[in-house]
């Protein structure tokens, strides 16, 4: 079984170069971008070729869809092959909504102004980093408000598998069928990893990006332990297949439908797992007012080394801006509102309630605030 690995030392082959990929410096891996620069930074530079990324969906599936779209759009921008497998809807619905690549924006660093708003000792320290990655090294930037139409996708290698069509055919095991289709796709195109002896065909190699949306939803099977076992086998074999070919997978699973131990096994069988928890439909903590949800790294990517790449902190939040999807470090802002008391934001409500107390009233509260 071969996996494409790169070593800095000179080997007989000089190394395969595929557009849209970058070799990692210390692990001998070939990294690709997920389309979201901040997510690439969390993964330590990018997603290695031959791995499976698991996105645990938020309960409305709005943001996981956006991540899948970015993943596929990045594939088209790098001229990789993309393969979308869906069972809940027609793949064209997603393929016609891929964000359009834009030119790289210049990120301007705010220069420290001369006025001192904070104490002298903090003046020279850099501002707390909110954004996870300022400039992406090799990914593309996308504009969510614009989509790529069919014309632009016409000359790219776009494949899709609509499993809704197979409901009429009697397929015993939909998971096995899906994996067989993926294998056929790899074998018929140039996505298989090159063997050590075959050096001549390097130029035809390309990466296949497989995205499976809503995997394990009730359309795939009843949410019981038998389906969970089938999913386990599928994930195991998908990882085995990814290791022996030039494939990168991004699977989104609605994990709120499964028990926590089943979800834990899914995580173990994938290489990296990210959970999205959106605030939609829930009371939002005012601290998070600009964010749309929290992002938690559930399993860190640990490949070709003893320990995984760990980002500076493990608390992240994401925000869906008008034109892009951004992941940021979760910093609590300093508490500088007018009604600030020592207790903090959560107890602002109790302060308001006690305004109508007979003795003192609001002015007294203000005087006591030092």
């Amino acid at each position, binding site marked *: 079984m071969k996996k494409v*690995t790169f070593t800095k030392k000179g080997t007989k082959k000089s190394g395969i170069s595929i557009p849209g990929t970058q070799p990692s410096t210390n692990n001998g891996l070939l990294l690709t971008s997920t389309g979201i620069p901040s997510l690439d930074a969390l993964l330590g530079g990018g997603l290695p070729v031959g791995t499976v990324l698991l996105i645990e969906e938020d309960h409305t599936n709005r943001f996981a869809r956006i991540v899948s779209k970015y993943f596929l759009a990045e594939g088209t921008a790098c001229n990789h092959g993309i393969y979308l497998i869906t069972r809940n809807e027609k793949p064209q619905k997603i393929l016609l909504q891929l964000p359009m690549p834009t030119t790289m924006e210049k990120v301007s660093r705010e220069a420290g102004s001369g006025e001192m708003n904070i104490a002298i000792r903090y003046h020279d320290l850099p501002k707390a980093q909110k954004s996870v990655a300022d400039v992406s090294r090799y990914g593309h930037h996308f504009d969510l408000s614009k989509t790529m139409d069919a014309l632009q996708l016409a000359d790219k290698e776009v494949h899709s598998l609509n499993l809704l069509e197979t409901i009429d055919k009697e397929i015993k095991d939909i998971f096995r069928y899906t*994996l067989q289709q993926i294998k056929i796709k790899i074998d018929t195109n140039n996505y298989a990893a090159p063997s050590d002896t075959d050096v001549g065909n390097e130029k035809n190699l390309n990466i296949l990006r497989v995205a499976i949306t809503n995997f394990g939803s009730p359309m795939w099977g009843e949410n019981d332990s038998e389906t969970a076992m089938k999913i*386990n086998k599928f994930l195991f074999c998908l990882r*085995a297949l990814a290791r022996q070919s030039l494939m990168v997978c991004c699977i989104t699973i609605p994990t709120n439908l499964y028990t926590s*131990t089943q979800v834990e096994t899914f995580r173990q069988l994938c290489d990296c797992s990210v959970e999205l928890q959106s605030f939609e439909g829930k009371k939002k903590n005012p601290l998070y007012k600009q964010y749309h949800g929290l992002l938690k790294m559930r399993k860190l990517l*640990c490949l070709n080394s003893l320990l995984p790449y760990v980002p500076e902190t493990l608390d992240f939040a994401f925000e869906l801006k008008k034109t892009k999807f951004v992941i940021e470090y979760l910093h609590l802002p300093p508490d500088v509102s007018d009604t600030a008391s020592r207790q903090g934001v959560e107890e602002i409500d109790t302060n308001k309630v006690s305004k109508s107390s007979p003795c003192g009233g609001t002015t007294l509260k203000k005087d006591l605030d030092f």
Partner: protein
Amino acid sequence: MFTKTLIKKINRCLAEKCLTAELWTLLVWVFLYFSFVHCHVIHNVFISIGCRVFRMFEELNRLAGWSAEKLPDREVIFITDKGCNGTFLLHHFIALYLKAGQHVVLVTVEQSFAHYSVACGKLGANLTKSKTEGKLTHVDMMKAGLNEYLQESSPTDQLSKGFSNKTLEQLNDMIHDLVNSVPVDKKSIVIVDDLSLFLSLGFPIEDVITFYHKMKYITRTKPASFLTVLHLDGSAEDLPTLYPNFSYYGTCELKLEGLESGYSKDVHGTLEVIQKSMKNLRTVFERKVRQYKVTERTLHLFAPGTSKAVL
């Protein structure tokens, strides 16, 4: 007496700033003297330098009483982890055995061979070279499982039927053959990547326990040891019964637990080494608890609460 004359001669040479030839001969005499009389000192010096150069987990070796000379002998070692990932310990054992020139049979279920190759390379062991020399044999269960799932058979497959009800039996037979083919004076270790994964893939627990028992039998009949990993966070319902069975047959447990307070950069968790031995017809468990931190190339162990970040 001899040392005093040597020292006098060296001092005289240095004082007179004489030709280096005489100084060199004196130094050679000193070296030979030490090497013959105090050979164990030099031996230890070289071994400790060697270990540092070879970048193994020396602290773990010291804790468990292992070294390049004293490899685990006929032991059944299992690694359990909860809240953290303990597979980095496998790389240590592979490197330890290959450095000592002994044999390794590596059965991979969770990761590919290339992963082990690169990771052990950081510990100073060259897996591809050992494979060509015949010191390392690799059994690829991932490929076998994939081929069975896709119902393709490949002639280069070692397991003829891939994953089926008989897989663990076939694997056991194959391991038996491989261990039998190891030369008599060499020790070997059989490493199975992740035995608990078989449960998640639908194998009945009895098969897994039988396989484990047969591995124990191998360690009784041959100078071989067995090592596996058991992930305790998992969904198989039978997982809680697997652990007592493992510890019943096992001789050494490396128990890893993540910190209760969550992830920390300086302390990754606690490592407990539990070694079972028979003393005066009684089974004795020796427990040693440490906290650990994994770095790029080694493992740091320290007494609980004495991490460098805390002190």
